[in-house]
């Protein structure tokens, strides 16, 4: 409050009364100001006796115009985008941070990072989730909490590397140097999770020592710290006589089995592993090892060297052997009776004939002078061959029977050509090397040409120096080949082309009609309403359409309903043996009396029973004797035409109906009250015949 001069008298003695809010000149008494604006904080008592300050928060970097005060405005409308972003971010940080059990201080720091990020416009183009996760991880790293990036990615279900990318970027932009991860940080956390009880501290200490040893032995650079921790904890646990298997450890540490085993083997290779437990706790070896990947590479290099030496030796040995072979052959020839007279001529002719045959194969010019021509011939042949063969295959597949004669003849062709190709290919390397030399020479000359090109960047004409036109020609197929390839490509991509055509036609039609939309949404399939008179029919139809399981014989299921009405028809349907049929008829007759009314209930129970049957089929073989007998019945009926089987099925069939009578009042509640195994049994028997079918299907 600057002391002002009174307007009336000019005196500077002004009394300001804060309580009344007035400024009065003491000399003349004129009131200079009424209702002075006071910058005091006022408190108001709210509900429950809580006193809160009166007023609104106006942010420093908020909008320049004053926020509108008024009772009609909702608070969210008044806030602008930046504040909203920050509020949203804060909320998400709180949520995620509480899941990680971070304390409030960390969360506040994370929010500060987030504010920095937002002010630097780094959130643009990135999901807020990722940015928040990166901020939280930054805090974890700077504070040294034992949280891994993997934990965050688990919570968010996001790929670790994506989060890592965001994290690295933020760290770079905010110039935050996060200290390197120390595997020692994670040990107490993992040890706690592995539940060592009272000895947790001791085990952690041992594991820490192990990790430090691993660090000295260069096992930790370039590796995930969690893997090392896992290995150290496993060994420490064993040292203190806790049995923690590899699976337990990997569940906690989140690495895979292979990694853990690898770390253990690497540790095994170090000299420290040879010490006993006591020695290890007391002594620290001076010698440091090389990083394991380096030793592996060296090992590989050694192996390669060894192999090379072996190969050399092999060559030498082979050389020796071939020497011996030659000597033997010459000896043999000498000892062979020589052909005289006319026959001598034949021996000479054989060799040039072979060569002549081989050379006459290529339809191209027979001169062997220019290797380039050979190269051309070879490539032409290869492509022709390949294309011909492929087309032949396709045609052959299409019309098998008719064209058998022709493919046979034509297959002879490729065989002969294959033989010639090998001879040509044998000469190819030399051709290749020659032409390579050519290009090298030309490239040397062309280098100077290129430098000129560099000086004149404007020229866009293609400099043909150093480009062998003939060679380029080989890269282009001639017309016949083009036709062949076109056919081939069209056949291969026929579906795609058809789709494209249809799409185009559709678009054109719609354009004419004027209903062309840019993007068409997929219409979901509308399920047809099933119309049926009875519930049983409805279920039938549904099952028909839906085809729930392959283990249900739907035919028999249908017969189930019809069979009760017409027992005479049933034998035609069942493909079982006579014994089974007898049982079937007997059971059917029993059923007609009871279950006409309970048809619907039956079918639903059938459905349930099938599910039980299917789920219990593995149990079936294990459970008790009750089931065994039925199983034996079932298995025996499967072996057809065994007369011995008839008496046992009859006897067991007699017992089985008795068992049937017990649960025959087919009421759902009773069934469900029974134990699972019994239900298995009764289901088997009731469905026994059908169970046979199901069984047969299963076993097949």
């Amino acid at each position, binding site marked *: 409050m600057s002391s002002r001069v009174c307007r009336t008298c000019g005196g500077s003695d002004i009394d300001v009364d804060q309580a009344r809010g007035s400024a009065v000149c003491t000399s003349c008494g004129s009131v200079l100001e009424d209702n002075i604006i006071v910058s005091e904080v006022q408190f108001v008592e709210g509900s429950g006796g809580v006193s809160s300050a009166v007023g609104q928060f106006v942010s420093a970097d908020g909008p320049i115009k004053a926020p509108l005060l008024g009772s009609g405005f909702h608070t969210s409308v008044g806030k602008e985008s930046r504040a909203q972003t920050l509020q949203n971010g804060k909320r998400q940080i709180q949520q995620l941070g509480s899941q990680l059990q971070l304390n409030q201080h960390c969360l506040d720091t994370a929010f500060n990072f987030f504010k920095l990020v937002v002010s630097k416009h780094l959130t643009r183009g990135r999901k807020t989730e990722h940015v928040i996760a990166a901020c939280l991880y930054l805090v974890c790293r700077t504070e040294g909490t034992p949280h891994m990036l993997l934990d965050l990615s688990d919570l968010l279900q996001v790929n670790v590397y994506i989060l890592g990318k965001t994290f690295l970027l933020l760290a770079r932009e905010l110039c935050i140097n996060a200290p390197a991860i120390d595997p020692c940080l994670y040990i107490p956390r993992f040890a706690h999770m592995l539940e060592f009880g009272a000895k947790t501290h001791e085990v952690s200490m041992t594991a820490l020592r192990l990790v430090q040893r691993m660090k000295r032995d260069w096992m930790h650079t370039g590796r995930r710290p969690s893997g090392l921790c896992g290995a150290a904890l496993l060994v420490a646990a064993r040292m203190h006589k806790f049995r923690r298997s590899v699976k337990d450890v990997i569940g906690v540490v989140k690495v895979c089995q292979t990694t853990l085993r690898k770390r253990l083997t690497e540790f095994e290779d170090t000299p420290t592993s040879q010490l006993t437990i006591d020695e290890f706790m007391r002594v620290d070896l001076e010698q440091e090892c090389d990083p394991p990947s380096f030793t592996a590479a060296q090992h590989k290099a050694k192996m390669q060297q060894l192999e090379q030496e072996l190969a050399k030796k092999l060559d030498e040995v082979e050389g020796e052997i071939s020497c011996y072979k030659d000597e033997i052959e010459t000896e043999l020839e000498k000892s062979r009776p020589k052909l005289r007279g006319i026959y001598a001529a034949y021996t000479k002719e054989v060799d040039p004939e072979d060569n002549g045959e081989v050379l006459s194969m290529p339809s191209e010019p027979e001169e062997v002078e220019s290797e380039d021509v050979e190269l051309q011939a070879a490539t032409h042949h290869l492509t022709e061959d390949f294309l011909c063969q492929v087309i032949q295959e396709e045609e052959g597949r299409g019309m098998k029977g008719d064209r058998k004669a022709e493919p046979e003849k034509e297959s002879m062709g490729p065989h002969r050509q294959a033989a010639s190709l090998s001879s040509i290919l044998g000469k190819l390397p030399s051709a290749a090397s020659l032409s390579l030399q050519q290009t090298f020479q030309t490239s040397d000359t062309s280098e100077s040409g290129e430098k000129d090109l560099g000086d004149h960047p404007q020229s866009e004409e293609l*400099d043909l120096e150093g480009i062998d036109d003939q060679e380029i020609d080989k890269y282009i197929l001639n017309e016949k080949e083009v036709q062949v390839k076109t056919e081939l490509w069209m056949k291969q991509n026929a579906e795609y082309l058809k789709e494209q055509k249809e799409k185009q036609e559709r678009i054109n039609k719609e354009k004419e009609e004027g209903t062309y939309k840019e993007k068409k949404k997929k219409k979901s399939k509308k399920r047809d309403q099933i119309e049926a008179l009875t519930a049983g029919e409805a279920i039938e139809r549904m099952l028909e359409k839906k085809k729930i399981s392959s283990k249900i014989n739907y035919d028999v299921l249908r017969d189930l309903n019809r069979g009760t009405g017409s027992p005479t028809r049933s034998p035609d349907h069942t493909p079982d043996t006579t014994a089974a049929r007898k049982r079937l008829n007997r059971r059917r007759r029993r059923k007609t009396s009871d279950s006409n009314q309970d048809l619907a209930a039956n079918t639903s129970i059938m459905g349930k029973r099938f599910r039980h049957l299917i789920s219990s089929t593995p149990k079936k073989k294990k459970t008790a004797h009750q089931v065994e007998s039925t199983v034996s019945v079932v298995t025996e009926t499967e072996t057809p035409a065994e007369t011995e089987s008839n008496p046992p099925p009859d006897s067991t069939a007699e017992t089985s109906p008795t068992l049937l009578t017990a649960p025959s009042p087919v009421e759902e509640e009773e069934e469900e009250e029974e134990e699972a195994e019994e239900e298995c049994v009764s289901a088997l028997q009731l469905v026994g015949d059908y169970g046979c079918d199901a069984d047969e299907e299963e076993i097949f």
Partner: protein
Amino acid sequence: MDSSNDEALDIIITNVVATFRTRCHLNLRTIALEGTNVIYKPEVGKVLMKLRKPMITASIWSSGKIICTGATSEDEAKLGARRLARCLQKLGFKVRFSAFKVVNVLAVCSMPFAVHLIDFTKNNRPIASYEPELHPAATYRIKNLKATIQVFSTGSLTVTGPNVQNVATAVEQVYPLLFECQKPLCK
């Protein structure tokens, strides 16, 4: 220039990527049907053409832009690119060879000593970054050369840069830094 080492380091260039333009529209279907060693990808809209003599793979787009990868030197890349343009010319397109530029060069190099990555990162923050959870190597980015060097704990490096000269300079620049944090190999 060798910065206090007696033996020269072998920098082996493994890949050179170059782009150029043909300044004319190319019909990919024609190329696919009339060329050998081509793979047509209609979904993506490009044709892959592989040359044998400089072992090169080229991605050809219908706009006339071509990317050429797989060469082992800048000259080879240029030669391959010109060959490719010639081939397209023969197929009947009015090809002009323009805007040839080597975009990326990848080289590998091996130090005779192992490197302690954590020390290396500490000494060179924030240029170097090392995140063992994500990647086993420490990344060192040289801004003025626009080169990136990945340093592995065994002492091998992979260097990527816009041209061969930059790559060589980058290796020379980083060598003394690595030398400080070295760990002599036992065997």
